[in-house]
């Protein structure tokens, strides 16, 4: 992983929002075409979800990959072998 996700500069925009990326899918529950993928915190922690924005039908919940940058920070040693002390 390296140390590239340990320190960050402050955002330049005065306010910050999460983008919901439309997937082009159709909701199997209500038929809506407003389905989007975005980062959330669910009951377990950070996850990526694909959800219908009209009825919140959950099409997919996944553990974020490195490309998702969610959360933005990450341990530099998470893929190192563990010692007895951690």
């Amino acid at each position: 992983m390296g140390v590239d996700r340990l320190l960050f500069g402050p955002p330049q925009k005065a306010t910050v929002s999460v983008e919901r990326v439309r997937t082009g899918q159709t909701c199997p529950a209500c038929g809506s075409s407003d389905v989007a993928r975005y980062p959330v915190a669910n009951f377990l922690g950070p996850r990526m979800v694909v959800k219908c924005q009209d009825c919140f039908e959950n099409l997919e919940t996944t553990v974020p990959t490195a490309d998702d940058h969610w959360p933005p920070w990450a341990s530099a040693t998470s893929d190192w072998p563990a010692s007895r002390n951690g």
Partner: protein
Amino acid sequence: MTIAPETTSSAAPAGLYDTIRYGLIEIAREMNLSLMRSAFSPVVRDILDCTTAVHLKTEHGWEMVACFEGCMQHAFTSQHIANFTMDEWDLDRTEPGDVIFVNDPWRGAIHQSDVNLLRPIHIDGEVRAVLHSTSHVVDLGGPIPGGFSNGVETAFEEQLKFPPTLLYADDVPVRPAFNYLLENTRVPSMLLGDIRALYGCLVVGEGRLRDLLARYGTDTVFSAAQHAIDVTEASMRAGIRQIPDGDYRIEDFLDDDGVDSEPLPMVVTVKVRGDSMEIDFSGTGRQPRGNVGTAWVEATRCIEAVKMLVDPEPPVNSGTLRPIETILPPGSAVCVLPPSSCSNHMDVGSRSINMVVKAISGALVSKSIAADSGTCATIVMGGIDMRPGREGNQWGSFAGPGGGWGGTWKGDGLTYCIAPIGNCRTSVHEHAEAESPTVVGQMEVMPDSAGAGKHRGGFGGIYTMVAMSDTLVTITSDRVRHGADGVVGGGRGMSSYAWYIPQFDWSKHMNPRMLHGLEPLYGAFDENGVPSADRGSVEGGATNSTGKLAGVVVKAGDALRVVIGGGGGWGDPLERDLEAIANDVRDGLYSAGYAAEAFGVVFEDGEVRDVESRERRRHLAAEREAGRWTVPSASPTDWIL
């Protein structure tokens, strides 16, 4: 208490699952009592800023099946701390008796001062349970004692930060970890006592958990735990389903971040679809320069507001969190990026809960609640004791002046209690005075501080600390510009204030309205120096324009007075029962002057004049209709300058 339906998925006797469910809660309760009774610091022992929890491995991950909180926010944040830590820790290298220490806000901790100990429990040869104990500790080093590092900009200037770190191996203390902790704190004896208490309660919990497993069998206990979570989730979803589908957006602000003077905008949109909810903080201001932002805890902490409104009774477990997903914009005030400072945490947290309450109240008027004080005005004190016989002792202590909760659809708000974010106790004065060179001069209700309403807010409080030795103080307060909002026509609570009182005189300084000779530290004042959020400003009337101070030195013999406002009012104050107002005035809670201004009640010789009051109310209602009158924010009308 929720009565669970009889299960049909198991051969377990009816009621057994609920017996085990409450058995798990009893484990957490006994852990908590052990922690509270053996801890050294007043923040754990007296204030109960501590919580214990039992997590089990389920098909989803680590899920909290039971907890017992002294401080409510921990009940909501525990699950993510357990998951962050256990996801990162190599369980194959874990041995029985290991304990992991973590206080990293970017791994779910509230702030560095809230330390967490996690004890993985091997069951049938694999780690299938984790016991969690957490508490605020008095000091973990850094330039500002006590953990609320007001005025700093980075985590490097705050208390020690530990990623998951082995603290006990095979129940043996890891000496380098302990040395690092104890050699970087101002109060090593107190910290060692608290860490040992946090560890000891985990040992107690393991014993009780093994008793439960032995009595009922592992499979039955895990099935019962799953049942407990499912039942709680169903109850929470039923509560959410009461809210009409829709998007409910609320905007508010923090006064400032303690470094820059501009208000910090906060935005929350509560989205309800059936029995599911999203709480989206998109639109919130970018991470502040000062320490008021939070790293991760709003992911779950803001759910307290939903719980209070729609499903307050069942004990919290993983099922409470399941129906809700939160959206935290990276780089915003609720998701600050490292190395941003985030030691304050309480003001963003309190405001987030206020905002979610307000959003749901807007959707669910029949069960609406006005905002609470929205700040805890926590006071951290420390220094070198100079009392005879104690000369040279390092000491540290906390005080949590109580605020008021908002008026509700059911009745008046609660008076003088810690904001819902924590809802723990305040310090025990006898202990504080024995252990610290301070005297609690006042800890009482602040008159005229509750927002007016058909159901008024709860009253806020006054806390006056008289220093017996020179004392270094940190104050963490917000709602200095304006008090807590009312709902459904209710008025705002009083805003926050602090004064420095030179040469405290018991015969002169006990009247909270008497300001002669007092030096305002912060607050909103009008051009004549009269405290007033409606007519005044935080600029110019006091030494500071912020309520987030550090490094205030209270000299021996002097005093510090902090006033925290009350909750907002619910409903039109012109409709409040006249006898209820008369009772409040007789009790000294409201003055006749403020009752006349805000409730339209006319007093003569201490008695309500019915006819004159009804006439005045009609007049005020007409003035309001014409745009010439609004409900005044709560504040005394008879300050003595």
